[in-house]
């Protein structure tokens, strides 16, 4: 394997792990709130989070540029204040992967949380537990397998992210060129051998992830 492919592989793993951590941090509380609370704007939040699943990744990528680009809604003040721009860095790849993977976790985890027996939560309340501690000690542990399955799917989605990453992070070898982008470039430049190797690798990884998610999902039933 060429050094370029190796660095793409390492970058992909790094980006996917960071994205999965971010997805867990944002997604699990969000999934809980969506499953257990009724509040104004709930449908809007639900739609917004799910949208990247439905929209073409290039559309999501474009929105990310509008928000995070050097002249973006958040990107411009950040650049003025610090001289730093997110676009074309590996952070951009991680953010793009997070946004694209988030709906997979939120969907799976909120379904798992919603199916937890409410009577058990009520029992915890009568024993004097706050909602916060009940969620941590009763609800989330009971929904564990569903949440883990969601995280595994999110990791796989992050690993395969292409469109939004290309738009926000570009395709810079050694810096933002993840495995899917590396495959694209290898095919474009006629490096069929390299492409085949990476394609095989991603296929095996994805199969492993699907099997893992399937087992976790089955245990959750």
């Amino acid at each position: 394997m060429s050094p370029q492919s190796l660095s793409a592989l390492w970058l992909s793993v790094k980006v996917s792990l960071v994205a999965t951590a971010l997805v867990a941090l944002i997604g699990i509380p969000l999934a809980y709130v969506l499953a257990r609370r009724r509040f104004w704007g709930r449908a809007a939040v639900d739609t917004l989070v799910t949208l990247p699943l439905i929209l073409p990744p290039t559309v999501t990528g474009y929105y990310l540029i509008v928000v995070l680009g050097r002249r973006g809604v958040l990107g411009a003040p950040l650049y003025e204040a610090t001289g730093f721009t997110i676009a074309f860095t590996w952070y951009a790849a991680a953010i793009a992967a997070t946004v694209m993977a988030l709906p997979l976790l939120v969907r799976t985890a909120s379904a798992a949380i919603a199916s937890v027996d409410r009577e058990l939560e009520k029992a915890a309340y009568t024993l004097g537990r706050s909602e916060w501690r009940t969620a941590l000690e009763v609800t989330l542990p009971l929904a564990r397998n569903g949440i883990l399955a969601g995280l595994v799917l999110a990791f796989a989605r992050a690993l395969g992210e292409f469109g939004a990453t290309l738009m926000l992070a570009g395709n810079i070898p050694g810096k933002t060129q993840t495995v899917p982008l590396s495959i694209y470039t290898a095919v474009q430049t006629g490096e069929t051998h390299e492409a085949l190797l990476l394609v095989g690798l991603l296929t095996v990884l994805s199969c492993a992830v699907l099997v893992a998610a399937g087992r976790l999902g089955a245990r959750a039933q």
Partner: protein
Amino acid sequence: MSRIVTLVLALLLVPVPASAQELVLSVAISMKEAVEELGRGFSSGHPGVALRFNFGSSGELQKQIEAGAPVDLFISAAQRQMDELEKAGLIVPSSRRLFARNVLTVIKASDSRVDISKPADLLDARVKRVVIGNPKTVPVGQYSEESLRALGLWDRIQPKLVFSENVRQALDYVARGEVDAGFVYTTDAATRATNVREAFRPAEDTYRPVVYPAAVVATSKQRSLTQTFIDMLLSREGQAVLARLGFQPPPLGAR
């Protein structure tokens, strides 16, 4: 529901108005406006011939032709891609003509506050990112790499480089202010004159001449019609359009 199905089925039965003839032109994207305008002139002289344009980087278009894309005419922004296709027997060698020349320039966003007026300025700390076409597939990137090497900047500029998939993407990155400077052709810069301005021009002896060869693709079933299009590029009218858009005439006697 069934009414919708009926409607869809009915639409499938409507015959697509087919032109008598169709020419597919794979064109280096830096030639976009020029070939579109020349195409309009060609179409008015050849009613019944529909032109289909396929724009991209020359390297990308080359790979498509190698993969068997149904293309009649290939216009490249460098000899390299055309040479490789000729060697592989994928173009008609006798049809090949050079018809235009271009010049490399370095641009910045028109509202940029960074002073970039000579090559060494690209190493300035305030210049954080510089976009060039991906040298593997994009001719403008290949010319830029040659120039940066000749200027002795190639190694030191590496950490700042961002690669684009074609020259127009490089232009767009600069116009949007995502990067501080970019290498494009003078004719590209002219298409976004309100968003970008020229910072400096690398000396023309630092890179190979930017030339545009055109050739009939070997699998074309309309070789003579495609050849007519190539002849039109070299005609006085064709050259006048190219000159107006900023292209220079091809070097004399070159192929």
